[in-house]
């Protein structure tokens, strides 16, 4: 059942995408409904998988996988001549379709499963042209996102990683704002350039792994690559490999100063695109670092940790300052992602347990609150056709329900205790303080981020919601069957996120209880090993 559910997550959207695409033109109105139905199935599958993990970890320990499936997909090379083992390769390389969920990927899968139906649903009134293609691309994107988090094979991960680019490219390029072509091109080229370098790194690592393990078949198994002998993979090699991974992942995060594609892509993308981009796709970068850079090249990670921490701190402050200048509220939220994900990176490269779990928690929380903020901003835009902070004002009187949700998500985003953002933010700062690698200055500087975050978010909230009412002439435009305040559909979209924002704020253990042991065994143990080795070398040298 687990295997079925997981593969349903990955392949059902793809099948549905083809189906939606090929709908006859007179059945165009069926496309959104079909897509939403698929979204609901995905949500249920995700919800079904979620409680399976603690059970599996109880049985099989911290490394347990839920819904594991392993099959050769592409195998090239000479086969053993004997008839019995005709499928076993003697040399060459193999790409396996190997998927499964562990405690690190499960929260992100769950987040994706939640955001996908919501973002499909929120497009109902916003997208009115070329609906079949739109929903087809959206579903295709879904496949890519689930595949990335489920992949247990580095090359498979890469395949899905790149696969997500194409649907999003079209989503931005066709259904985006006025500068959509430029934004889509920039997004695609920027991220693609980085990931090509990552691909080179992956190939090198796999080749070296085969060499180290004296194995004639090259494969990309995640566990095997995360368990290479650190003595043989030299620090210099690891350092370079870290840079190769960095190229792809840091752009995706995006880490300062590689972030400039993001505000543009976010601003131009349709609401659903922004939600998925902020909520899920940015996490491919952070997830990549956590899943690959840290355990596979721990010595390289240690070498570069300070630089990463420095970039993160710079990103926190810089992103926040840039937010403040924005007049376009969507761009403001986009820049806030730069600042928030820098928090996530700061926690990760503190390389202490509390930082890593804070970092994963941050991914989830950022997905919820920023995704929700994009949804709300999209709802505003549908009514007013502008997101200019100077053109809007006092909307709390016009739309009290929207104002409630907006304020709630803003508070979550600025880390108000009692809501989800606080736990992760606090954990990250605590970790930065506590880190042997980074130290208290990183924590102290990072802490200014919580001040700046409050400033720009409340400033925008104040302008948008409070003060005298300001609306552009001829608005709100309710032609698409909207009401002045949120419709029931829109409330239903925001409510689940609002509930989770509160629940995760009060009970972070829902995520951290399974997460902590997994992070310890799969990630931190490797880093500690590398650090011990370095200490031994340093101790032995003089």
């Amino acid at each position, binding site marked *: 059942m687990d295997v079925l559910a997981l593969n349903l997550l990955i392949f059902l959207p793809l099948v549905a995408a083809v189906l939606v695409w090929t709908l006859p033109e007179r059945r165009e109105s069926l496309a959104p409904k079909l897509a939403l139905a698929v979204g609901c199935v995905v949500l249920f599958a995700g919800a079904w998988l979620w409680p399976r993990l603690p059970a599996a970890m109880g049985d099989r320990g911290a490394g347990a996988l839920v819904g594991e499936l392993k099959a050769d997909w592409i195998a090239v090379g000479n086969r053993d001549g004997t008839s019995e083992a005709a499928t076993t390769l003697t040399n060459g390389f193999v790409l396996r379709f190997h998927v499964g969920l562990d405690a690190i990927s499960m929260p992100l899968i769950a987040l994706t499963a939640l955001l996908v139906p919501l973002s499909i649903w929120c497009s109902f009134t916003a997208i009115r042209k070329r609906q079949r293609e739109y929903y087809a691309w959206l579903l295709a994107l879904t496949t890519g996102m689930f595949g990335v988090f489920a992949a247990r094979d580095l090359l498979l991960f890469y395949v899905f990683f790149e696969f997500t680019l194409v649907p999003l490219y079209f989503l931005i390029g066709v259904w985006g704002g006025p500068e959509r072509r430029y934004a889509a091109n920039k997004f695609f080229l920027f991220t693609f350039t980085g990931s090509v370098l990552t691909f080179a790194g992956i190939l090198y690592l796999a080749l070296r792994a085969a060499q180290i393990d004296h194995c004639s078949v090259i494969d990309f198994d995640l566990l095997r690559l995360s368990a290479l002998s650190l003595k043989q993979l030299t620090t210099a090699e690891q350092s370079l490999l870290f840079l190769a991974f960095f190229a792809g992942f840091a752009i995706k995060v995006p880490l300062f100063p590689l972030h*400039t594609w993001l505000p543009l892509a976010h601003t131009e993308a349709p609401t659903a695109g922004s939600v998925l981009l902020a909520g899920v796709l940015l996490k491919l970068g952070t997830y990549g670092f956590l899943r690959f850079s840290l355990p596979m090249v721990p010595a390289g990670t240690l070498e570069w940790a300070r630089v990463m921490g420095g970039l993160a701190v710079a990103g926190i402050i810089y992103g926040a300052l840039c937010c*403040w*200048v924005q007049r376009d509220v969507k761009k403001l939220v986009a820049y806030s992602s730069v600042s928030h994900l820098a928090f996530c990176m700061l926690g990760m490269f503190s390389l202490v347990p509390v930082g890593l779990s804070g970092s994963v928690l941050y991914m989830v929380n950022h997905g919820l609150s920023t995704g929700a903020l994009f949804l709300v901003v999209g709802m505003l835009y549908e009514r007013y056709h502008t997101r200019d902070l100077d053109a809007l004002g006092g909307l709390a009187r016009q739309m009290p329900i929207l104002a409630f949700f907006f304020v709630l998500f803003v508070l979550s985003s600025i880390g*108000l*205790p009692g809501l989800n953002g606080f736990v992760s933010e606090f954990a990250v700062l605590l970790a930065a303080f506590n880190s042997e690698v980074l130290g208290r200055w990183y924590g102290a500087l990072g802490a200014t981020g919580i001040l700046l975050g409050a400033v720009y978010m409340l400033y925008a909230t104040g302008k948008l919601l409070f003060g005298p009412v300001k609306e552009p002439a001829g608005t709100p435009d309710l032609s698409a069957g909207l009401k002045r305040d949120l419709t029931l559909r829109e409330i239903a979209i925001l409510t689940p996120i609002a509930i989770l924002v509160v629940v995760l704020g009060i009970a972070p253990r829902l995520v951290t209880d399974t997460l902590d042991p997994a992070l310890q065994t799969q990630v931190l143990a490797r880093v500690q090993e590398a650090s011990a080795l370095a200490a031994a070398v340093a101790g032995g040298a003089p």
Partner: protein
Amino acid sequence: MVGIAHPTSMSNIEQLLVAGVLIPLASFLILALCGYRLGKPLAGWVAVLAIASSCVLSAAALVKWHGLDEAGRLAARSAPVLWAYLGSVPLAFGVNLDSLTLIMFFMVTLVSTCIFVFSVGYMAGHSDEIDGLSKFHRFFTYLSLFGFSMLLLLIADNLLLLFISWELVGLCSYLLIGFYFHKKSASTAAIKAFVTNRVGDCGFIIGLGMAYLYLGDLSLSGAAQAFAGQWQTHGPLFSQTFLGLNLATWMGILLFCGAIGKSAQFPLHVWLPDAMEGPTPVSALIHAATMVAAGVYLTARIFVLLTPEAQLFVAVIGCITLTLAALVAMVQTDIKKVLAYSTISQLGYMMLGMGVGAWIAALFHLLTHAFFKALMFLGSGQVIEGCHHEQDMRKMGGLWRKMPVTCGTFLVGVLAIAGAGIPAIWMPNHTPFGLGGYFSKDEILAVAYHRVYGEENVAADAPVGRGEAEASPHTGNTAVVAGAAPIQNPKSKIQNAALPPWLFWIPIIIAYITPFYMLRAWWLTFMGKPRDHHVYDHAHESPLMYLPLVVLALGTFFSSYYLFRPLVADAAPTPFLTAAFDGEATEAADAHGLLIGHTTHAALARIVGGAFVVGFFVAWVLYRRGLGLAEKLATALRPVHVLLSHKFFFDEFYGLVFVGGTMVLKAVSYAFDKYVVDALVNLSALVTERLSWISGTILDQGVVDGAVNGVGRGTWSLGGLARSPQVGRIRNYILFAAGSVAVVVLWMAFA
């Protein structure tokens, strides 16, 4: 390691308190979900009922607690409940059960109940200003949330839980200041309050990080123990220094930063006067009686983590604050602004008390202040409501005829804050009589005096042991036992060093100014001739609003030395405070315990005992005949008046330096983003494009393709060339043959 307890294992007292915290939460949820349907007065009464039942529960807890002996009290504390693991660190929350919690809990619920009742009357006329859409229920929703967070703050036994409730309280403050959000000023004030508090919180969170890093435990008792351990072993907190101060001091100062923000201390005091944009009951509840006092409460809780240097910092901040605020209060004309600055000034006194080690006195002052300041704010609310939103005292006057109850109760508050009382030396058997403010402020000053002028007075005095039992005021000889600081770091170099004298003398001077500005406010409002007949004619008071005033006035009367102080003093030697130091250190603390004897107090009484008389007299002389004399004085002292009425230009200065600075910084950042970072990206794209043009157009078309074409063309021309000799002219053949022979011959000749 923290034990994990099931909630049912809590003791009875703890259950009472937790229930007291949860009832306002339930009220919040009810009002948030269906407050709109409950409608106008009902929504308010739900909130009142909730907070009143909390008050009853806390009273029951207090009575129970009173009946317990030391062992019973210890046994009443149960193990905390695990909230989350962060990494490998367990975070467990429990109830911090001691006398201070209980008395604060009781005070907050009692004052809140009065204010909630008042609000039902007040908001009836103030909530329907927005498009006919009633916000009445929303106000009580926020108030209930505030009740919950404030009470959670009081029972928190963990710095993190303290911080969580701290922020929730700040959120309520933000929501309530911005309650009239259609007003630009209210929306701006709300943001200012939140952001200013965040500046403090930023420091607090860094301090929290340091505590976690060096002490490894965020529970109050655990942190205190670890702190003492570090001191004894000279751990990294004490051995490492930064900018000349050891890290322990830095940690204390940073944690105190949170209190600076919330208690509106210099330099973060600027938000509180602006916070008066909120409805007046909010000003009374949050911005006078309870929330702002939370900073002092926090300082009391982290007192054990403050090194003497950090304490000096606290004292200096308190001293600066109380001075600035009192000076500004002298010239304000808005009745709420006077009260706001007076609040800041009184908070400064409390912080000064904390800083000089008058732990008990500062908290005592906090309690008395909560009553009389809530009283005065509600009185001002009554005035504002009665005068149709007029807040300018220059337009009032003579209101005592229209509002006798408000006038009388307000005067009680004025007397209390002015420290009116009959000093002990003039009374038989040296038992002083006075209102709360008289004892609490004097006690702070007494400890300051002692810290400034050293031990002689104590040495000369009766060798009474530390604690309340031996030194009850009834015994006569020892008039006031100061809230001694039992937990100072005995080996620290400034432990016994005298504090600078100005820490004593400036507060003394301000003690003369306080009665002046308070009587001024009272006189301008209620006495004299009416200055604006429009305002005067409409003035009235309503019972729903003045009944709470009477209750608070009675509270002010009785919240004196004999009722409240013993309870606070009881909290001082709790396990929490003494846990920081083991036996040896406790003895040291005993030896250094600050016992303020009779002579000190008598000397002090001579210095400030008559302050309220002098202050009142000056105010009376100045404002007896209206504003004329004061205006003349203001013109005569124009530069001073301008300085004061512009609040020392703090807002302007911050606007210029910090806001302006950040504006520049953010503009620079964004310009950098746009013109440097993004330009580099675009440049690289451009370079690639040009390169591809070069490779595409020049190289590929020109060179590679050109080469192919060139080869083709070359062959073609070569063919043409080769063809040209063979056109059948005999002369050419001969020439070709001859040339060839010549070449061959030449080649052979030279080879």
